[in-house]
C-alpha cells in the first residue's frame, strides 16, 4: 500500500495544453469590423474581400435581411430545444419543403451547423464493418464523419476513376471469398461536388456507371457547388445533367451560397427519414434559429427568381481564371 501511495505522489501529468508561442501565425485573428461583404475592413484597413465564401453576394441583400428581421420579431432569436422537443418551427418545415422542391428530391432535412451536417450524416448509415471509398482530397468534415462511423476507409487518388475501379475490383474479389459477409456489408462512395482542398469538380457520370456496376451507394457533398454549378444553381447533378435520384444522398451547407448558417441533406424519403432518429447533430442539438431559416428561404427565393446570377458568376470565374493563367 505504501508503494501505491508513492506511485500516486510521483506521477506527473503533462501540462493540459502545450504553450503556444506568441508569434504563432494562427494566434492573432484578423478582426473584421462591420459586415464581411464585398469590401471589408480588416484590422482597420479597407480591403476588397476575396476570402469569404459569399458566392452569390447575398450577404448584404436587403430582402434577406428584412425577412430575417420579420422572423426575429415573431420568434425571437433562439429555439431553446432540439427538434424532438418543441424545437421544430413552421419555418424549419417550410425551409425543408422548399429545399426539397428546389433540388427536385422527395425530402430534405436541416441541421443547425454546416460542419455537423455531413459529419452526422455519414455515421447514421455507415457503421463498423461497412466499407467507404473516399477521395483523398475530401474535406475535414467528411474525415470527421468517417472517423465517427468506425467503418473501414479506402482512399482513392484524387479524381482518379481508374484507381477507384481498382479498389472496387479488389473488394469484389474479397467478397467472393466470403459471400455471407458481403451480403450484409454496406458500401459507400463519398465525393464532393466541388472540392474545397483542390478546387476541381468530381467526374460524376463515371461515378454513376461505377455505382451500378459494383453496387455501391453514392454520397455527394455539395457545400461549394450548391448555388454555383448548374444552370439554375442546383449543383453538380444539374451541371452534368444526371437524374438526381441516382445519387443516394446530397449534403450541403447553407453557409456559402445561401449566406445563412446551417446545412441540409436531401434525397429520397427512404434515406433521409432515417436521419431524423439517428443523426446525432440533428437529435441531440438545438435546432436552427428561425431568423437564419427565414433568411435561407428568402435567399432561395432570390435564387429561383434570378437564374441569371449563376451565368454572371460563371463569367466572372472564367475571366479571373484566364487572367491568372496568363
Amino acid at each position, binding site marked *: 500500500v505504501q508503494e501505491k501511495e508513492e506511485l500516486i505522489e510521483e506521477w506527473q501529468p503533462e501540462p493540459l495544453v502545450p504553450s503556444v508561442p506568441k508569434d504563432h501565425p494562427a494566434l492573432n485573428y484578423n478582426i473584421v469590423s462591420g459586415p464581411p461583404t464585398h469590401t471589408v475592413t*480588416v484590422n482597420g484597413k479597407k480591403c476588397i474581400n476575396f476570402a469569404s465564401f459569399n458566392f452569390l453576394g447575398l450577404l448584404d441583400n436587403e430582402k434577406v435581411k428584412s425577412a430575417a428581421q420579420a422572423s426575429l420579431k415573431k420568434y425571437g432569436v433562439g429555439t431553446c430545444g432540439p427538434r424532438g422537443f418543441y424545437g421544430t418551427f413552421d419555418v424549419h418545415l417550410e425551409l425543408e419543403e422548399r429545399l426539397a422542391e428546389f433540388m427536385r428530391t422527395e425530402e430534405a432535412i436541416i441541421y443547425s*451547423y454546416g460542419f455537423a451536417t455531413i459529419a452526422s450524416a455519414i455515421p447514421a448509415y455507415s457503421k463498423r464493418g461497412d466499407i467507404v471509398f473516399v477521395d483523398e482530397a475530401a474535406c475535414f468534415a467528411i474525415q470527421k464523419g468517417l472517423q465517427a462511423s468506425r467503418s473501414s476507409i479506402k482512399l482513392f487518388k484524387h479524381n482518379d476513376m481508374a484507381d477507384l475501379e481498382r479498389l472496387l475490383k479488389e473488394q469484389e474479389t474479397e467478397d467472393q471469398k466470403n459471400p455471407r459477409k458481403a451480403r450484409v456489408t454496406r458500401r459507400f462512395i463519398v465525393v464532393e461536388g466541388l472540392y474545397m482542398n483542390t478546387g476541381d469538380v468530381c467526374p460524376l457520370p463515371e461515378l454513376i456507371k461505377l455505382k451500378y456496376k459494383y453496387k455501391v451507394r453514392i454520397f455527394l457533398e455539395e457545400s461549394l457547388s450548391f448555388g454555383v454549378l448548374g444552370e439554375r444553381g442546383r449543383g453538380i447533378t444539374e451541371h452534368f445533367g444526371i437524374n438526381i435520384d441516382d445519387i443516394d444522398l446530397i449534403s450541403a451547407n447553407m453557409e456559402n451560397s445561401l449566406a*445563412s448558417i446551417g446545412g441540409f441533406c436531401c434525397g429520397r424519403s427512404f434515406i433521409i427519414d432515417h436521419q431524423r432518429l439517428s443523426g*446525432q447533430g440533428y437529435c441531440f*442539438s438545438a435546432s436552427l434559429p428561425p431568423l437564419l431559416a427565414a433568411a435561407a428561404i428568402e435567399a432561395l427565393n432570390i435564387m429561383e427568381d434570378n437564374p441569371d446570377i449563376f451565368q454572371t458568376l460563371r463569367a466572372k470565374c472564367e475571366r479571373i481564371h484566364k487572367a491568372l493563367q496568363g
Partner: protein
Amino acid sequence: MANPSAVCNGHLHHHHHQKQNNLLKSGIYKKNGITKGAKKNGVSNGTLYKKTFIEHFEQAPMYVAVLTFLGFGVGTIFGYLRDFMRACGLEKRHIAAEREEQKDFVPLYQDFENFYTRNLYMRIRDNWNRPICSVPGPQFDLMERVTDDYNWTFRFTGRTIKNVINMGSYNYLGFAETDVNALKTVTRELQKYGTGVCSTRQEMGTLDKHVELEQLVAKFLGVEDAMVFGMGFATNSMNIPALVGKGCLILSDELNHTSLVLGARLSGATIRIFKHNNMQSLEKLLREAIIYGQPRSRRAWRKIIILVEGIYSMEGSIVRLPELVSLKKKYKAYLYLDEAHSIGAVGATGRGVVEYFGMSPDDVDVLMGTFTKSFGAAGGYIAGKKDLVDFLRTHSHSAVYATSMCPAVAEQIIRAMKCLMGLDGTTQGLQRVRQLGKNTRYFRRRLHEMGFIIYGNDDSPVVPLLLYMPGKIGAFARRMLQKNIGVVVVGFPATPITESRARFCVSAAHTREMLDTVLNALDELGDFLRLKYSRYSKSSHPELYEETRLELED
C-alpha cells in the same frame, strides 16, 4: 439569515436521516442518492459543502418494474405479429421503400435495427417533433396536426392551438422573448451585419462582435479568456480531440451527453466510465489508472481528464463539484465541466455550478457551456486560462474548418449577459435568477407533496417525473396537451428501458398561476393514470414546510 437556516436544515436532515434508517430496516434500499448524501453532509463532509446537497433517486415498488416489462413484452409480441403480416402482404407497408433500380444493392438498414422504431416508437410518435409557430416563451402556439393512419403520416389542419403552457423548452431565464425593447440591439446588429459570415474563424470570420462577446464571457465567468463557437454540440466534439489524444485517459460519467461521448471517441484516448456522480467509483478508477498505467505497455498516462456535466439533463442531478475538485487536486487530473444546462440557471447570480458551490473558477481547468439554454440563442463557449484558450485558437478543429457564429445571435448573447451581470443598469438579470430559483423550489416541493417520484437535486430547474410504463408515456403527453400544457416525454433509448419519464423545464418566465395550473393538471392526471408511486409524501410533515417556506421568501 444564516443561523436560522442552519438550524432548519439540520432539523430537516435529522428527519431524513431517521427515515432512511427505518427504511433500511424494512429492507427497501435506495440508489446512491439520499442515504449516502445525507449522512456525508451531516457528518464528515460538512466542511466541503457550504449548503445542503439533497438529491433524490427513489426507486419504485417492484410491481412497477414487472408491469413495465410486461408492457414492453406485449408491445414486442404485437410488433412481431405486425411484421409477419406485413411480410405476408396482409397489411399495407407504410414505410418508404428502396428504389426499383437499386433493389439488388446491399440493404441500407437491417430490419432488426428498426424493429423498435417501427413497432413501438411509431405508436406514440405524435408526442415528439411537435411544430410550433410562435416564440418558445412560457406559453406558445402549437400547430394542430392529425394522423389518419396511426402516426405513419401527419397532416396539418391549419389551425393553431393557442397559449399552450410550455414546460418543455430550455428557457430557464426567460430570454426567449419578442419584446421590441429587449431586442433593440439585436435588430440593429442584424441590419448592420446581415445573417451569415461565410468564413471560418482563422480566415475572414472573426468579427469585432465575436471579440466583444469573448471578452464579455470571460468577464462573466471570472476567468482569463474565452472562445466562442457556432454550435454547442460541435464545441464538445471538436475541442476534446484537440485537448487529448492517444496515450491519455478520459474518465467520463455514465450519463454524459452524446456530444461529450462523441468528442471522447474522436480523440483516440482511452475512455473509462465511472458510475453516475459516484465519487468512490471515480477515485477507484483514478488510483488504478495512476498505479497501473496504460493497459498493455504499463507506461504512465500522459494526462488524465475527467468529463462531467453541471446539471445532467435527464436526471436533474447536479455534479458533486467540491469532492470532485479535491479528488482532482489530489491525483493531479484535469477537469472538464460541461455547463450546458447549469450556466445561468444555478448559482446566486447565475454563474453556474462553480458559484453554486461557492468555489473559484480557477479550480476547474476547462469550463465549457452553451448559449442555447439560458441565453435564448445558439452556440457554445470554452473558457479558462489564457494558455488554454490560445491553444484552442490555434489548434481547435472548429477554428480552422467551421463557420463562426452569426453576429445577430452573438448580440443576443451579449445583451442577455449584460442583463444578467447588471451592466444595462437594471436589476432584471438578478430578478430572473431569483425567480427561477423560487419557481424551481416551489414546483419541486409541490410535486413531492403530491406523491410523484421526482429525480434530481432540489435546486435544479430540470425536473424529471417518472412514468415507467410505456403505455403511460403516450397517455400522459396526449392528455396534458388536451389540457393545453406542452410536456416532453422521454423513453428508451435516451433513458434506461424501465425508467421512462416526463421532463419539465421550469423557467423564470413562468408565473405562479401558470405553475399552479400545471400542478393542478398533474394532480388530476396523476390520480387518473396512477402515477403517484412515491411512498414518502412530504405532506406528513407540514410544520417543516412552514419553516422552509419562511426561509425562501425573504
